[in-house]
């Protein structure tokens, strides 16, 4: 669904517009189905942005002018748990 050339905001905005259109009277079945299809496409798109896999945390080690990336080993995750 990444081929939607939209920002998250644009997709969300369109979803809002679709919803208000669908809540209005007077749409026929065809229109309802069409908007429903599009809405689900947008929903999936937004969900996809939020549900991307967890990112990495790296620390740069400097060796003279060279940089090397290593895993950041500070145990920040414990603090995340405490927060919940």
């Amino acid at each position, binding site marked *: 669904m990444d081929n939607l050339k939209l920002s998250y905001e644009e997709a969300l905005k369109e979803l809002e517009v679709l919803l208000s259109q669908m809540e209005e009277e007077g749409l026929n079945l065809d229109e309802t189905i069409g908007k429903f299809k599009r809405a689900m496409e947008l929903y999936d798109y937004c969900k996809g942005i939020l549900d991307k896999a967890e990112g990495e945390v*790296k620390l740069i080690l400097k060796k003279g002018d060279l940089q090397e990336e290593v895993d950041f080993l500070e145990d*920040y995750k414990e603090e995340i748990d405490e927060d919940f």
Partner: protein
Amino acid sequence: MGGIILRPLLVNEVNGYIKKLFANDLLLTYLSIEGEISNFTHHYSGHMYFSLKDDKSRIKCVMFKGDNQNLDFKPKDGNKVVVTGSVSIYEKDGSYQVYVKKMAPLGKGDLHKAFEELKAKLEKEGLFSSEHKKDLPRFPKKIGIVTSSTGAAIRDMVSIIKRRFPPCDILIYPALVQGDQAPKDIIKGLKYLESREDVDLIITGRGGGSFEELFPFSDEELARYIFSMKKPVISAVGHETDFSISDFVADIRAATPSMAAELAVPDKRALLDELNTLGYGIIRSVDDKLNSLDNELSSHGRSLKFLNPESILRDRRLEIDSILKEVEFKLSKKLMTMDKKLTTIKNRINLLNPSIPLEKGYGIIYDDLGNIVKSVLGINKDDRINIRLQDGSIKTLVLEKEENNG
């Protein structure tokens, strides 16, 4: 009674005597004094003459050329300084003064002044103006952080970013954040992250500390570099009440490193709630639509008959079914409430589709005129009615009718 008076003393004898007294005093021969500079003159001879004062008193000072050549700052009226030297008598006019050997800015007085001066200067140059501020990316892919790799600041930032928006990558460039070398080190880190194509947002800062400790973030070179950067920068130095020059030139000032993390990424849970509310609304509106369609169909049964509702709607319904099956499959994994709602909709659609009951062995009964028969009331013995089954219809003759009572 007075002391022993041999003869009247000469003025210079008195001053000389006092000078000896001072010279023999342990404290006066070596001491440090803290105060504010006033009446400062840097004489063409190279000597510096000034007074040190506090709110109650003042004392004259002289710092000779040989001693002031290596000063690493330019003393000015108003500077708060610590001088070290001796107090002695200037015999010629009977006054005492401090012979200053060393002088150093007293942390705050001088740094604050330097801070205010630099701030005024850069502001005048337009480095703080809002038109230069860049927008932060809404969903940063990789955040670069220049700060100390140890301590609470980096831990807090990483944990908050990861909690709020787990997909975001973080790249930490460890740098000195206090002392003389800090500004250069921080600039080096910023340059490196600026050169990384995958980094789309940069945070620099440190946890709380004294004004002196935070001062590297008020370095002019650092300020100018931050200003020149193409990537958006969040400055997060110290606590809420601390300000540094980097705060003013950065695209956003965060009151603390934790705040920087909050500003840097959106809160996934809040976004999900918002999104799911919309998704649920969409499902509900389709549900409503199908409900009203259902009502319409049953109340217009007659007229629809001539249009052969089954064939008209069959295609539509197959389409709806397949969409809903697909959507249901997707959503069932994501959201139980939406999933349940979809099932309801799907059942609703099935109810609308006469071919489904027919498959189960139900029939639709039409009268002579082709109207659907829903009640025994309009039917009498010997009426002809047609029963539609899934694979055809049967013409029948009514032998008897019986009404349900109640």
